[in-house]
């Protein structure tokens, strides 16, 4: 039986993200009870004023961070795809950091072990998604992202026709 990809991760919409860092603040206060973007599991990147995007763990299939750990400190949950760090095993060597293409796993400035987004499992829902003032963040799956991209592309392709049908469908 073919299974669809069910793993949900946090995705930011570049059209909506304004680079305000509210996600960074709410993440650090949720996880560390302090305001400090350096302790946030999600980070904003501003390339220039027009290009802003928050980046966090993508819960990759066959995650390279897990594979890169020589001490087997990282494991991925089969159910959710969330990466768990065994703090006793991690010695902060940073190979997982090098392996991650997204800069989503980081070395904690005080604990000296790596940390990564866990979708706020203790809160039941990711707080950054809940708090984003622009509604730029969502918990989604790769399948849904692909669906949305397809719909957007086809809409663009048939802009005129879509406009016409929307008009004619109005009473």
């Amino acid at each position, binding site marked *: 039986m073919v299974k669809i990809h069910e793993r949900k991760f946090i995705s930011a919409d570049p059209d909506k993200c*304004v*680079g*305000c*860092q*509210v996600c960074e*603040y*709410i993440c650090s*206060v949720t996880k*560390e*009870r*302090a*305001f*400090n973007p*350096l*302790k946030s599991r999600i980070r904003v990147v501003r390339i*220039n*004023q*027009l290009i*802003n995007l928050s980046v966090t763990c993508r819960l990759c299939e066959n995650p390279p961070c897990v594979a890169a750990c020589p001490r087997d400190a990282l494991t991925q949950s089969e159910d959710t795809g969330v990466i768990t760090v065994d703090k006793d095993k991690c010695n902060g060597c940073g190979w997982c950091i090098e392996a991650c293409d997204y800069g989503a796993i980081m070395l904690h*400035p005080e604990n000296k072990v790596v940390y990564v987004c866990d979708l706020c499992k203790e809160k039941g829902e990711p707080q950054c998604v809940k*708090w984003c*003032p*622009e509604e730029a963040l969502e918990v989604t799956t790769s399948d849904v992202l692909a669906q949305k991209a397809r719909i957007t592309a086809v809409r663009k392709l048939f802009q005129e026709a879509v406009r016409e049908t929307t008009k004619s469908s109005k009473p």
Partner: protein
Amino acid sequence: MFGYAGRVLHVDLTSGKTHIEPLNEDYARKYIGGIGLGMRLWLDNSRAGMDPFSPENPLILANGPISGTMWPTGGNGHAFVSKSPQSYGIGEAKAHGSFGTELKRAGYDAVVLKGKAERPVYVWIDDDSVQLLDASHMMGKSPSETEDAIREELGDYYIRVASIGVAGEKLSRMACIINDKTRAAGRTGLGAVMGSKNVKAIAVRGTRDITVAKLDEFMEYVKEFHERMKGPATQKYRTLGTPENVLVHNSLSCMPTRNYNNSRFEGAEKVSGENLNEKFVAKIIGCSSCAMRCEHMCVVSEGPYKNTMTRMEYETLWALGPYCGVDRLDAITKGMELTNYYGIDTISAGVTVGFAMDCYERGILTQKELDGIDAKFGNAEAMVQLVEKIGKREGIGDVLADGAKCAAQKIGKGSEKLAATIKGVETTGYDLRCLKTAALGFAVSFRGADHNRHGAYAFDVKGKVNRLTAEKGRGKLVRDMEDTYNLIDSFIVCKFSRGTYYKELPDMAKLYTLVTGFNMTPEELKLAGERIQNIARLINLREGLSRKDDTLPYKVMHEPIPDEGPSKGAFVSQEELDLLLDDYYEARGWNREGVPTPEKLKELGIDDLLETVKK
């Protein structure tokens, strides 16, 4: 301490030595932070009558108790305070972005820069480590380029930088200090003070946790304000942005046009906020911790200024547009980009270009003196060229780079009457002839011509008073607004969010208490706002400013509005100004010369300052 870092960094640029002093807790409560704390620290570290460019004039950088938290719009501001090379009184300017929050995480409430570095340096504040690093290879760079160069050099792309451009290096009295590429501490020429100290930039990396006294209650309050910021109080800033003012002001005939020759602009539709948003705004972005976002990023997609990208606000648009008779948004956008590139205040730049155009049209300046530029009102290319020359301090730009007042002193021939300045600072996009509450606010503003010290225009524009008459009672209106604005700039929160503080003082007192743990009452806060106004006044008096400087530009008082419409014939007479000043001084508890009485200072708990100021 909660909220406050509890430390003030002192940097002696001459010797290269630094030391840290604990933040005086009494100052924290009395002056809050930002401009309030900054002015007190400036006073404590200065002496009367210094030249603004002398090494002994301290440049103060201060954030507020809220900085570094996720309070919406409050986490990110910072203020610069020094003696202004424009007004020769107190100068201050604030900016938002992400610089102030970084400074707080580095562990400082304020930085006092004194002396003068031997060669160009940048101040590198890396938590507890503070160094002066060579900046000679960065001279000539724009603030944006400087930011990139410092990040590259220090190898950390999250370092926050506030820097000056060429204009600041060349001591242009309208130079500003820019952080995060597009955010400027714009007014009163503090970029030139930084330049006079041979400081190209201040770079900060802060890694500390910021905590507040009552975290759970604070987060509840943050949530509530996130909701408020989605409401009507901030709608203007989230949609059209401040350029919405163009058509509003034009319809009231209160938009100074062509250097105050008119009060309405026939090209207003072309440069309206509506048009700007439809054709130029590519993205609206937010500062650190903001929940409303307002920064309208504009891109020019065609024509001679293609690929220009910059932020746009009403004041800039007005100054480089209608004030110069220019009706082309692409050129205005280019002008704005250039002001950011060279590091000059856009308002002062536009008003000074408008002044030069007026001089040209009246034959006071010739085309030859203007380096061949045909500086007619409405010539968009001429406006762009003049801004560039001012930025570079080249040719006629050298004459204009210190602002309209200094330019008029050099040019003579009656041009003084054409310079729209108050206390040497260029005026802003409100025609004071027909906005008489605003006129009072502008006249008494301690940093010179400015709408952001009081917001008194709101009473006039919104029709809460008869804007065409000067009458008793306006003094109290201005006073109360000033006190509130002082608090906004000391906390520091964004002025665009002021409408979300539904109960104003009680809301702000609650915020202060939750963050700092100091029990703050609305009454005590009100007193703090008043105290800040009084210390600014005392500083200005010490520096030689007085009632005679609480005045208005010549044209506002002598050239009635000629345009047909609701404001025709309006101007502010000396009698009206005197009436307004008397009323205001009385409301302030100052004497008729505008000097705070000993009783008033005692009431405010700063009677010790009366002596300081008399020395």
